[in-house]
């Protein structure tokens, strides 16, 4: 085995650690072909460092050179066509690098993980790997500050963990942690090695002094720490479905599959799902312009209790095309061609479609409802279907909407409301739209009131489900709710104001995935109101706050003289690509919200806090309650057998003494134990007598020919126990409460087993290594010649 300098070893281990630390990025990228160039980047950085240091180049210059190597390597990857000989920088080369870098930044700020890996992202990932390698190399090999290397090593993991809205799986933590441990161990050995040479055979063989025991301890400590770091958060109590059974939004029975039988119930359930399951992907030739809300069904009847679908005959198949959208003037609206792929996890008898669809190419018997353009199958399912849709792009102007005439008789039904609406609803509707003169202005004022600061509404996915009259009033009072309530309330108000309205249920546009493809997931579930304007047909409004939905449709925003755009919360979001989607908010609420369920009252924080406090108290009290139960069991098991009773009393006494911090010598006789305990706990005369009583009982039980029943043993034991407990300091008592002796003993025992296990693994590893070394040595020796005849 060739001996390797300490420098070389550390360099290699540092490179390995850097490479391992990049692995968590797999979790947030769609493809994994970046790993090879990333590994090359790491190798280039480490190699450069090693060679330059060997050549005696000033240490300060080494990181600079390493950085240059990273940049050159990135150039080879993304700009080799504009560089001289493929790698020598030119002006175009520099421009290209900057452009690609910018592209990468754009992609990362636009997409939700997992992101695709176009060249811009590739550059970021590989450059990141290189920089991590550079920092680790600098810290470890040059500065010898190994513990600090943990910071760059944690960088990629942190990025991945924050990027994943659904949380990163725990095992991604292992590679960076393992790399860091390897670094620590290696550096420790190198440091010890600097003290001199050793004569042990293994040291001579490997060229480094005998530091095996050191390494073993390092591995032992490290492995335990790693196991604890991974296991403890997993064991900590968190209010999740896993612990408390399926939550309200857990989709009980449905498993991963998203069903839409009752669109409204499913909507909230989808939003509350823990896993953001893929629903469908759609793509179009029109690239980024194609972002569209996807509708599933239209709720066009409000019965005073809830919005629902009207009874609708669906006689006509979609095979021969769909009718012209209701109320829309015949004009040459642009048409976009969509390919929609529904995921196998999504089940529905309604066909998810953009509005207004005009032509659908889909297998099966699908029928449309003319006024809403909803498409439904009788007994068919859209699960895992792929189909093609041609849809109009209707973007009415504010002008056209404002000048729309009175609605035609066809949509009179869309104005129907129950006789008695709660006065809160009507009053508020009148208030908000007081200044508006025409229908469109009223609608726009309503939308702005819901979205803007005037309304003061807050998005809350945990709020009470439903949109009945009562729920409606609650929503208006609390000003908390989610999209369904915003949509339902705005639609009711619009009908009250004389504007035909209905509620559409479906999905927001989803996340752009590149190549004109959008990904729609469960957390993109949405509901929105559609208002009817003669000549423009059914127009989508967006009363749900911008944090969830992005900007309101252009045509629904009234340009005013003073305020330019009544949408202060989200000025940066591009119209066609809502970047922040529902999941970020429901997830946060979900964690603490498991308990605040049901009821018409506004959800108060107090029950939650109380519950949390109770849970915390229960958590801390568990060990000592368990110990108490254990004691009781012991007495019960003893029954009325005097010997067993005495032993139970003695065991109680032992626990009490050790909990109070007094030593319990296994070599001491009961009598001397009693004497020592009485002194240590400074017991009074009464207690001493009780203690003597206990000692006598246990002596009888253990050593006499026949144990005799002892009176009041249990009560005496309790009294002595309490006196001993009182003798302990407060700190001791708290410690005993949190972790009674018997569990501490179990923990110590478990730890001993664990350490023994590690030792065994270690010893086995060493034996394997030795035997491999021995066998390779045998191979190298010439085979013994057969003896000459």
């Amino acid at each position, binding site marked *: 085995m060739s001996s390797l300098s300490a420098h070389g070893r550390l360099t290699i281990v540092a490179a390995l650690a850097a490479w391992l630390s990049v692995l968590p990025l797999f979790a947030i990228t769609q493809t994994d072909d970046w790993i090879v160039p990333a590994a090359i980047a790491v190798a280039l950085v480490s190699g450069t460092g090693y060679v330059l240091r060997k050549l005696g180049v000033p240490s300060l210059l080494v990181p600079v050179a390493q950085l240059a190597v990273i940049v050159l390597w990135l150039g080879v990857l993304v700009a080799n066509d504009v560089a001289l000989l493929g790698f020598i920088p030119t002006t175009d080369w520099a421009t290209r690098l900057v452009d690609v870098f910018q592209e990468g930044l754009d992609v990362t700020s636009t997409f939700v993980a997992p992101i695709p890996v176009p060249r811009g992202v590739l550059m970021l990932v590989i450059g990141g790997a290189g920089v991590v390698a550079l920092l680790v190399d600098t810290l470890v090999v040059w500065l010898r500050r190994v513990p600090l290397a943990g910071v760059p090593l944690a960088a990629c993991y942190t990025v991945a963990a924050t990027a994943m809205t659904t949380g990163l799986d725990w095992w991604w933590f292992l590679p960076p942690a393992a790399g860091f441990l390897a670094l620590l161990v290696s550096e420790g050995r190198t440091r010890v090695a600097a003290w001199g040479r050793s004569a042990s055979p293994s040291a001579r063989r490997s060229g480094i002094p005998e530091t095996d025991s050191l390494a073993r301890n390092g591995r032992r400590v490290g492995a335990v720490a790693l196991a604890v770091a991974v296991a403890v958060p997993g064991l900590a109590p968190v209010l999740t479905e896993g612990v408390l059974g399926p939550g309200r939004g857990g989709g009980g029975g449905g498993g991963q599959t998203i069903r839409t039988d009752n669109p409204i119930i499913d909507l909230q359930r989808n939003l509350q799902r823990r896993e953001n399951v893929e629903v469908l992907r759609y793509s179009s030739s029109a690239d980024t312009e194609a972002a569209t809300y996807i509708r599933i069904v239209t709720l066009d009847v409000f019965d005073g209790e809830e919005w629902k679908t009207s009874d609708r005959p669906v006689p006509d198949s979609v095979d021969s095309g769909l009718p012209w959208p209701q109320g829309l003037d015949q004009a040459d609206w642009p048409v976009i061609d969509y390919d929609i792929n529904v995921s196998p996890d999504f089940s529905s008898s309604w066909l998810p479609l953009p509005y207004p669809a005009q032509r659908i190419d889909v297998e099966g018997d699908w029928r449309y409802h003319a006024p809403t353009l909803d498409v439904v199958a009788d007994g068919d399912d859209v699960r895992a279907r792929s189909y093609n849709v041609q849809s109009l792009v209707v973007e009415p102007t504010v002008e056209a909407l404002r000048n729309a005439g009175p609605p035609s008789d066809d949509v009179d039904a869309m104005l129907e409301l129950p006789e008695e609406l709660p006065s809160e609803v009507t009053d508020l509707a009148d208030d908000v739209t007081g200044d508006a003169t025409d229908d469109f202005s009223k609608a726009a004022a309503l939308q702005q009131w819901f979205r803007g600061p005037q309304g003061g509404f807050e998005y809350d996915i945990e709020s009470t489900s439903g949109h009945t009259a009562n729920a409606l009033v609650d929503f208006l009072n609390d000003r908390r709710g989610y999209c369904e309530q915003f949509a339902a309330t705005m639609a009711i108000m619009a009908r009250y104001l004389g504007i035909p309205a209905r509620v559409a249920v479906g999905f927001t546009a989803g996340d752009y995935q590149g190549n004109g493809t959008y990904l729609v997931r469960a957390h993109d579930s949405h509901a929105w109101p559609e208002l009817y304007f003669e000549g423009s047909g059914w127009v989508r409004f967006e009363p749900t706050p911008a944090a969830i939905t992005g900007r309101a449709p252009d045509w629904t925003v009234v340009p005013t003289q003073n305020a330019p755009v009544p949408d202060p919360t989200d000025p940066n979001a591009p119209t066609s690509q809502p970047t922040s989607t529902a999941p970020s908010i429901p997830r946060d609420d979900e964690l603490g919200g498991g308990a605040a369920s049901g009821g018409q009252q506004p959800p108060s924080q107090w029950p939650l806090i109380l519950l949390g406090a109770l849970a915390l108290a229960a958590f801390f009290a568990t060990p000592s309650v368990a110990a108490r139960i254990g004691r009781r069991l012991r007495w019960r098991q003893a029954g009325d057998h005097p*010997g067993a009773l005495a032993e139970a009393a003695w065991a109680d006494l032992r626990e009490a003494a050790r909990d109070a911090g007094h030593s319990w*010598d*296994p*070599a001491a*006789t009961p009598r*001397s134990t009693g004497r020592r305990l009485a002194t240590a706990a400074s017991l009074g005369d009464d207690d001493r007598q009780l203690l003597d009583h206990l000692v006598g009982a246990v*002596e009888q039980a253990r050593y*006499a*020919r026949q144990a005799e029943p002892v009176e009041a043993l249990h009560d005496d034991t309790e009294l002595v126990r309490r006196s001993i407990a009182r003798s302990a300091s407060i700190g001791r008592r708290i410690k005993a409460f949190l972790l009674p002796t018997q569990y501490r003993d179990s923990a110590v025992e478990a730890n001993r087993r664990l350490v023994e296990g590690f030792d065994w693994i270690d010893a086995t590893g060493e034996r394997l290594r030795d035997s491999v070394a021995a066998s390779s040595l045998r191979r190298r020796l010439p085979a013994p010649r057969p003896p000459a005849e």
Partner: protein
Amino acid sequence: MPEPFNPGHHQPQGPGEVVPELALGDLADTAARVQAAIGSVIEGKPEVIKLAFTVLLAEGHILIEDVPGVGKTMLAKSVARAIDCTVRRIQFTPDLMPSDVTGVSVFNQSTREFEFKPGGVFANIVVGDEINRASPKTQSALLECMEERQVTVDGTTYQLEAPFMVVATQNPIEMEGTYPLPEAQRDRFMMRLSMGYPSQQAEIEMIDTHGSTSALDPLEPVTDAAHVHKLVRLVRGVYVADAIKEYAVALTSATRTSPDLRLGASPRATLHLIRAAKAWAGLEGREYVLPDDIQALAAPVLGHRLLPTAEAQIGRRDAGSIVADLIQRIPQPEPAR
């Protein structure tokens, strides 16, 4: 001179012996009286007196190893006097013959028969003074009597009296002209005791009380040999739990593996330990042995049988302190759960 010898006077009874109608309370009473009586002669040594009485009840023998003049012989004599039993003193000298110890058959001219003249060993309590001065041959004659409690002369076996206890003394500082007891012989003594010097106070009191008269004169017997013999049989019935046996064995085994010891305790030592513990428990009026009894007796019972290594001796660790260490380390047997 002793009264005419009457062999078979105190025949030990067989296994089917009647349980004596004595209670342990009597034992404790008698013990207290005997100890008080001896205590009036041997001042300031209650623990030695108690140990000596324990050995008597446990049917063992005592080796007292101490400097001259601290009351070794006085202890033996006062025990005998307090109990109203026979006591004989044999001064061991280099020319002492085995027959001086066991006895000899002489021809009686008048009856024209051989008549047995019992030796010094025929008494309830035999004081063997300066046992290390006699030749090994004579020593072993005594030691055989101790073990077998009988003497065989010219083919006739004579039972020794019961209770029977040998109190041998040995002077550790005089080396010239002595035959120190070998380990195997020492093993036959149940305990080795050391009187030690009295405290200053005790010595002053001793001058006051015994300065003029013989110390033994005012000592009146408080019990008799027959009663003591009943007590001995009572002690045999003291209960020894399995846990105690385990503990005693653990202790003696530990002496055999201790790195500080060249020679550990023999199985006979375990036996002696248990027997002594029974007597000790009986003295306390207890029907069963406690581990505390074992601990209290471990040093006196085991001490003289152990040979510390040279390292331990250099470290000034004698057998007593090594045994004390072992007691600190050996766990009490826990009852099965």
